[in-house]
């Protein structure tokens, strides 16, 4: 779509009759009606009369290299001064037209296309105040978006109170081992098995280290086996077979004697812990998970 403003009066072809309210530029018979010239921000007949009152854009921006023809308009402007002013407000093509009234029927479209070429300087413009302020504003909006992203993230991330998920559980020594049906005892709230091998114990997390299913106990093979992808683990949590990459995770344990003194704790690798003779209770801390070692 060309930029000729489609005024209600219709796009006037070059040299057409002047719209009412304007003095036609005299002495420039083929001079195209400035209205036909591309004036992107202006509605001819509306802004033009007011343009005489020095529109803000009339002055070429400070420091901007005005196109060669721009400085000319004032002295070279023909009689219709009010017309020239709006023309100068867009310091490009209309200026060119006003300056070269002898140009034979310049096609507004072509002129509209050529303005930058005709009048634009070759050297890059230095940053004007407006441009700079716009950049700063843009940066602040980017900051706003980043901040909003951060707020959204913090809002959406769940938080857990003390003692909710990941609390500490107190188990007795007798809890570790097998029940009457040969199934290892388990704490279903904390989601851990309490296994015992000879006199060593461990609290093993019930979630498989592959993709999060709850593995079960295979009573025939006396191993843990996961129904989702077939990973198998020994009763002490060591990986036997299957796609799980690690041994089973364990929770940190503290062994207390009858008076409440800590007499043993799990080691960093979360291996089976030897029970001292005077052990009374074991505190399993489900907030302190020890990841199983990878088996590669």
């Amino acid at each position, binding site marked *: 779509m060309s930029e000729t403003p489609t005024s209600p009066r219709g796009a006037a072809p070059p040299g057409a009759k002047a719209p009412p309210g304007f003095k036609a530029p005299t002495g420039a018979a083929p001079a195209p009606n400035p209205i036909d010239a591309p004036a992107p921000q202006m509605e001819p007949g509306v802004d033009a009369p007011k343009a005489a009152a020095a529109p803000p854009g009339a002055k070429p921006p400070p420091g901007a290299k005005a196109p060669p023809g721009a400085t000319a308009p004032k002295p070279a402007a023909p009689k219709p001064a009010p017309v020239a002013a709006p023309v100068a407000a867009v310091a490009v093509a209309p200026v060119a037209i006003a300056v070269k009234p002898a140009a034979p029927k310049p096609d507004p479209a072509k002129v509209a296309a050529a303005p930058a070429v005709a009048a634009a300087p070759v050297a890059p413009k230095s940053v004007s105040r407006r441009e700079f302020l716009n950049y700063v504003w843009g940066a602040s909006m980017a900051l706003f978006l980043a901040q909003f992203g951060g707020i959204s993230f913090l809002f959406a991330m769940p938080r857990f109170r003390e003692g909710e998920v990941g609390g500490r559980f107190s188990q007795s020594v007798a809890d570790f081992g097998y029940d009457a049906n040969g199934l290892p005892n388990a704490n279903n709230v904390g989601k851990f098995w309490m296994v015992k091998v000879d006199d060593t114990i461990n609290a093993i997390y019930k979630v498989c280290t592959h993709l999060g299913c709850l593995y079960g106990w295979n009573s025939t093979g006396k191993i843990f086996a996961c129904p989702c*992808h077939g990973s198998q683990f020994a009763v002490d949590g060591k990986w036997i077979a299957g796609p799980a990459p690690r041994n089973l995770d364990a929770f940190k344990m503290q062994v207390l004697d009858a008076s409440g003194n800590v007499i043993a704790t799990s080691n960093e690798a979360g291996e089976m812990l030897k029970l001292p003779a005077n052990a009374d209770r074991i505190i399993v801390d489900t907030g302190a998970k020890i990841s199983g070692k990878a088996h590669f």
Partner: protein
Amino acid sequence: MAIIGKRLVDQVRSTGLKATVAQRLDDGFTRLTSGLSWNDVRGVLRGDPPGKPNNRVKPHTEAFWFHIRPTFYHEAVTTLYPTFRLGYMSALFFAIEIITGIFLMIFYTPSPERAYQNMLDILTNVPFGQLMRDMHRLGAEVMVVVVTIHMWRTFLTASYKKPRQFTWFTGVILLIVTMFLSFSGYLLPWDQLALWAVTIGTSMADAAPLVGPQVNLLLRGAPDIGAGGLLRFYLFHVVLFPLIGVIFVAVHYYKVVRYGISLPPEMEGVGEDSARKVGPDKRVNFMPDILTNELVYAAIAIALLTIASGTFYNAALETHSNPLVTPNHTVAPWYFYWLQGLIKIPHILPVLPEALSTQFDSIMFNVLGITPKILWGIIIGPVIPLLLMVVPYIDPNPSRRYSDRKVMITLGVIFEVAILYLSLAGIPTGVPVTRFGFVGGDPASEIAQEFMPDEGVGKVKRVPWDQLAVGTWQIVPPDEAPNAPEFNHLLRELQQDMDHRTREADPNGKKLSGGTANVRVKLIQPDVKEFTLTISFTDDKGQPQQYSKTNYLHRNSGYEKE
């Protein structure tokens, strides 16, 4: 008002009451149709050629819904080929899902305490409830198929080439949106299948390096899927992804109309894109031709969907979700089988012999911290959609003709075969074809799982309740209960399965040895029976072992229907 009244009175005086009313009605009608008077519409319906000026293009400038549709199509794209109307079908199914979804939302609460009971209520206490749910479920699965075939068609006819690269790109995004819509909806029934399939899926996010645990927490609202997870997934399903979908559909369709629907490849020169240059003799106007076609296709699709949902298709509802028990053979939804297959790839370089593979895995893990699951599932998995996205940008061939694109088409076919292969491996029982992906415990528990699966209806539940003969029945050799043909058939099938597993090892190399079994049926209540399968065998250490599984069966449960 007085002026209008005056004009009205004048008109009545000059032309008579009847004519005035007719004119006013016609005027109103024309406004409603955005430019078509009653006679114009009659002309459309009769199939008359349009008059001059052609009023039928007016709605395309005046009205929004017609403005976003093109005014005409090239006649070469109005037949089934080349588009097969798949893009239209994709959008249609999206709309169907939105509508059926809104109906279902009336009765559904995204809370673990309520969700399952809501599902039961929808199925048993809401007229059309089951139909609506089945249409929504079936529509979702059909939509995934349709959008995939749409992508395939676009690939084959090379309609993604210049200038339509960005259209393809937004299309792949829509494919991902469709998959996520389906996946997030999967959780909502809150039965065992829903909970565990989605747990596995989101665990993949957990396993991603660096950001994994955070993403997992954001998705689930907690380390495990619970109330927070259900609510978040509900919001994804009902707000976020539909919104993204609508936005991208708008962008996608705008581009489609802007460049025009691409012509069949054989009609254009190499590198030519003439879809927009449609001579008047090749134009098929939107109104009435295309509009009618679209309405007919919509009618057929909706009718078929409704008939299928009302007759043979019934979405199952398993037992209530149990965060403490993972059922055997939990699977991802079928459109994610390929992903499940990827995760099961046992080695980073599976083509190497076993010992070398394991060594290479160990090196990769110790040096880079990458396991096969992380490489194939978390890194390569998302790469596949990314690969799809860049297809138009890396394709240097300017020709759209099939014969000129043998390489690309072959690559596409190989890709599709790979996806199918991985999908087969992703099925929990694996398939001998794929040679990997088998998941199974020891033979006895596998027999029990096959006949009495943890979830779903197995062979035992399908036996009519009355034929479950009370008593203890041996399997090897199979006893015969009087007047119970299907029950006896079941016993024989059990015996055959045990026989098969005694002779042939499963992909893990396990065989059943020394196996005997019996089935015990007890009457617990007048309409409840207890069915226990007990298998005795010797394990690999030579010790006698026993495995037993119990199901409770009610007379009315209606398992035979599923």
